[in-house]
């Protein structure tokens, strides 16, 4: 469980960090680079799909783990 939480935290932190950089329209090149071309959306959507998929996987694992914890071995 601890490792799962750790993965999630790291990944969220990574994405959040990137997102704040990406949304900061400080100078010309950022606006140009990230929004003018439109093709960046493919990358953003791709990364979003990967993260959503990882999150679904984590939820499934979480549920299995909970089931495992609740099933006390009969003695």
């Amino acid at each position, binding site marked *: 469980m601890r490792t799962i939480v750790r*993965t999630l935290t*790291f990944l969220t932190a990574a994405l959040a*960090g*990137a997102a704040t950089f990406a949304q900061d329209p400080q100078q010309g090149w950022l606006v140009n680079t990230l929004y003018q071309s439109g*093709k960046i959306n493919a990358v953003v959507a*791709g990364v979003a799909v990967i993260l959503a998929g990882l999150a679904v996987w984590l939820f499934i*694992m979480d549920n*299995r783990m909970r089931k495992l914890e609740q099933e006390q071995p009969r003695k």
Partner: protein
Amino acid sequence: MKYWWWKVLSVVLLLGVVIVGLRTPLSPALIACTPDRVAPGPVTVTLAGYNTHFTDAVIALWIENSGQRVCATSFKALSNDRIEMQFTVPPGLRNEFCDLWVRTRTHGDLRYRDAFYTVERGQGLDPATASTCEPADVAAASTPFTLPNRNILNESIRNLFFHVPMWFAMVALMSIGVWKSIRVLQLGKARYDREALAAVQVGLLFGLFGLVTGSLWARVTWGTWWTTDAKLNGAAVAVLMYLAYLVLRGSVPEPAKRARLAAIYSIFAFVFMLLFFFVLPRLNAVDSLHPGNGGNPAFNTYDLDSRLRMIFYPACIGWIGLSVWMYDLRKRMAHLENTRQHANDR
């Protein structure tokens, strides 16, 4: 430390890849100009750039046609990505298309290939009037860290750090799966069967990621969600094969028999998957749109490829590390479920 250093390493690498891979600007490029044809006589041209610094970096502009140059008589930057220039085109340009060149102080020479269609072609410029300019060479400027700006890829070139490593991770996990399958056949132990299943499950997840990110990428570059590209077929078939593996497992109730049948199919499927990924795309290379096939430039022929690679290799290591970590969790959970079940059955 002994057990988790590689997990930390892969997460740190991925963090770096996400930040550097998404933040690094593309190198400057020329993307459009009007008008799109030239005839002898004076002409005013407006040129649009991408990530360029026209206001302070332009040294000279010229049209090039079959090695002969026509220099701009004057130019004025409207903004950093828009510049206006005047040419007096002499008669006699020979080739059908002209290139437009910009010499800059910061990024060297930028070329806009086939910028103009040549109206009223001749036999080449008269040497007396040609080469009206020989712009002074600039000392090679130390260019800032940028990613190559390739036609049709443009900004989506960053997908290289997300889409391609998905397939690397899938092949890595399927290799673990086939190794465990071989152990099943050799030793017949149920624990190897559980490990093989875990590897295939996580590998399939990465295969699906690869398909979806690839489909999104194809939409913005090739203009379609799906084509009959050789690599796409191979990838789809590999995913189908491992889905069939899961169906096979589901249809055999006895554990020992299931383990053996699944192991045999998985070894068979793995060898064929390698065939589809690495051999058939070369056989059907003519109709592949992927870089490196069918006359498309490969990524490693790109002018700034070493910069792509500096991010690409860590991305591969990071994603493979993450996928192996996920496999590790899945495997340990499967073992745990098994021991619990045994304890309950007793």
